[in-house]
């Protein structure tokens, strides 16, 4: 009997349990058993490379977009297998954007599964009280900080400063995109525009200034926001269920009742964000993929991925529907089968309810709609692989952090970034 190993970054115990349940059903259906192995997302790159070097890659890896092309290049992923799966399922049933992001000249690096858009989560009640505009632009954010920042009771923002967390990369990319700055152009690395980048750096410095000290990432953002001590944070939609008090291990502590939806009702969100040099703004999305590895028991792995994307797809999404918008819209027979099913899914862990019960419909539309227009560096230019390598190298995180720490000024930072980025290529 075949056994395959499946690495997943969804390592919360509850989500893990759901994945195991799905794996068990797959086993029942196919006779192939699946070992679900949680891997912390920040370790994923290292561990995959290490496993590749040692020749003991798992069969299937659930991974974020940024690894898809680099891994395909490095030989970790079996492009042929992924392409075959997509062909089998019907390429047309997938959202084309997500599929494009993973495509190489030889086929698809891996199979897109789900995605979400990054949001600026803000305290709508306070904004209203103070007559502030929603934080859709740099200027609005800065104005809100001006009005609301009052430490230690209330921080204007909780930015990301922990260099080795993906979270910081995501937030920074979003902020850069908002001002239309990208390190890659159609021909590879392009020098950053100094003026626009300086705007970004200054804006980021301002929100860091309004944040608590130290190494911040998503955890602090959420804790502070939940405690009512942050006016704005940047987060993924995964926050939506706990924000509504549905998960005991991350309770909103702003009121004494950790199960109340109070905070949710006082919260607004923004996905499309704009800087002064890019008035149209941009949203940022992350897409997750199933990669079949070079060491895989290919047939079994393909069977598992196909199952997860078809019979088990609803279950896959149900792991955390608030942050897993369907990429595969439906089947050939019913092109909206999965989007429809998704809309019915309950969110939450310790208590469950459909999203619609918790948030206003326009808010949900805003969140979901973002996915279609969302961008990433290098997608438009066909340089996603390069952009991913830039992100994975964390050069930008590091240099931005050093700029915050006052190691060098904005101009020098931009210059150095250009220098180091050039080296990556």
């Amino acid at each position, binding site marked *: 009997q075949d056994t395959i190993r499946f690495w997943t970054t969804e390592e919360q115990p509850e989500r893990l349990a759901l994945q195991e349940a799905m794996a068990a059903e797959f086993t029942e259906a196919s006779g192939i058993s699946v070992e679900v192995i949680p891997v912390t997302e920040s370790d994923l790159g*290292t561990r995959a*490379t*290490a496993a*590749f*070097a*040692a*020749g003991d890659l798992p069969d299937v890896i659930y991974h974020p977009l940024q690894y898809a092309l680099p891994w395909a*290049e*490095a*030989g*970790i992923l*079996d492009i*042929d*297998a992924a392409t*075959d799966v997509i062909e089998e399922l019907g390429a047309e049933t997938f959202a084309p954007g997500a599929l494009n992001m993973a495509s190489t000249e*030889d086929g698809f690096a891996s199979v897109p599964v789900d995605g979400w858009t990054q949001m600026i989560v803000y305290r709508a009640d306070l904004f209203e009280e103070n007559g502030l505009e929603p934080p859709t632009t740099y200027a609005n954010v800065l104005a809100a900080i001006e009005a609301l920042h009052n*430490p*230690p009771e209330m921080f204007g923002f909780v930015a990301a400063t*922990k*260099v*080795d967390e993906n979270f910081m990369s995501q937030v920074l990319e979003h902020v850069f995109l908002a001002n239309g700055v990208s390190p890659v152009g159609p021909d590879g690395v392009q020098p950053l525009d100094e003026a626009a980048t300086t705007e970004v750096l200054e804006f980021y410095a301002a929100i860091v200034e309004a944040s*608590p*000290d*130290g*190494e*911040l990432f998503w955890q*602090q953002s959420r*804790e*502070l926001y939940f405690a009512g001590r942050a006016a704005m944070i940047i987060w993924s939609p995964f926050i939506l269920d706990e924000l509504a008090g549905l998960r005991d291990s991350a309770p909103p502590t702003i009121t004494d009742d950790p199960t109340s939806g109070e905070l949710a009702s006082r919260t607004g969100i923004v996905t499309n964000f704009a800087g002064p040099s890019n008035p149209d703004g941009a949203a940022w999305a992350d897409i997750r993929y199933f990669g079949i590895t*070079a060491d895989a028991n*290919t*047939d079994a792995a393909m069977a598992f991925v196909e199952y997860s994307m078809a019979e088990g797809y609803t279950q896959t999404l149900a792991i955390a529907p608030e942050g897993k918008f369907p990429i595969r819209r439906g089947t050939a027979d019913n092109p909206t089968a999965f989007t429809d099913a998704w809309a019915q899914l309950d969110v939450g862990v310790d208590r469950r309810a459909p999203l619609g019960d918790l948030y206003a419909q326009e808010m949900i539309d805003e969140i979901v709609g973002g996915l279609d227009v969302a961008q990433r560096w290098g997608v438009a230019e066909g340089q996603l692989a390069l952009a991913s390598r830039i992100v994975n190298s964390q050069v930008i995180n590091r240099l931005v952090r050093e700029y915050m*720490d006052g190691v060098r000024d904005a101009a020098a930072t931009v210059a150095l970034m250009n220098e180091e980025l050039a080296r990556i290529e």
Partner: protein
Amino acid sequence: MTTAIPPKGTGPLARREARLAWGLLFPTLASVMLVVILPLLAIFWISFKPVDLADLRAAAPMVREDLRDADEAAPYIRYRIRNSSQTDPISDIVLSDTIPEGVELLEVPEGCVLEAQALTCRFDLLDPGGRLTLELPVAVPGDIEAAEIAIETDQPAISGAAENVLTSGEFTLENFAELFDAREFWTVIGATLFYTVFGTFGALIVGLFAALLLNKEFRGQGVLRGLYLFPYVAPVIAVAFSWIILFDPFSGSVNALLIQMGVTDDAINFFGERPLALVMVTVFEIWRYFPLSFLFILARMQSIDTDMYEAADVDGASPFQKFRYLSLPMLMGILSVLFLLRFIWTFNKFDDIFLLTGGNAGTRTLTVNVYEQAFALSNIGAGAAVAVVILICLLCFSWFFFRFMSKEEGL
């Protein structure tokens, strides 16, 4: 009668003893050789090589086989062969497969031979990242579904020859050049020195204080001594995480306490701020290793002849005088030995910082840098270069160590 020249060679008894000694030592020596000496040599070797983590896996050809256009008129078997490596070419590739019964190859492409049902194909070269597709038209007289399954479940075998960077003759000084050029290199050295020097001194002084406290008989002395040894005995991972939680800026007790006592308004991010993080990891090091100094100093203190203190009593020395003129000089030996040993071990310390800060916020020491380079950045060569720097430092320390150690204590 007697000759004043010592006899040459060894006697039969001595020879027998030496033989036995080497026999007893052999397993140990062999294993140490294998796991210490060889790796050390390997480190030097690797440090001159442009190796990434991924390069450890030699380039290999990979193949996938399927039956295409099964439902159409001209089905064909497709072999997709690619080079797993983006950097190294593969030569002398041999693909061999068995064509299932009931499938008939219509055409054997160039470079392939078919003997009975066994297909063997040879190719000279596959470029880095290169791909190769073979399409062999077949005729399937029988059940095509069954044939497809038969073809796709039976995996073809493939082999090829590629050079491995580790064993190739390719050398580079790049690793060292990058290492010394890197802006953070001197920060790393600085952090290492700070951590090592203060960690060592701190642990010694705190240990000395603790030893002085417990160097008397009283009830509960054993319990306290046990308690004071806990930090050292407990698994590092347990205590490191306890500290992280205790000092957490958002929900840690220490911050809550400091804020409440009015020492600070803002939460302090103990493990996340420069230069506080470095101070904190040093404090942790002191906290964790003072028991060791304490244990040694105490043992030494208890072995000091009490007669000497009684003589000093009779001589009229006061307690501080006794400490200054008697205890301290008597402890100097063990203190300097401990200093040297602790210095080296603190210098070598990895897990503590790795667990507490992961080397961030200015706490990256040389050892953490090895990990960072080799694993986080997957650049094994660079990691090895850092390791070589460490080894050179250690050689210097060891030289010191043996210079002084042989005089002191006779460890």
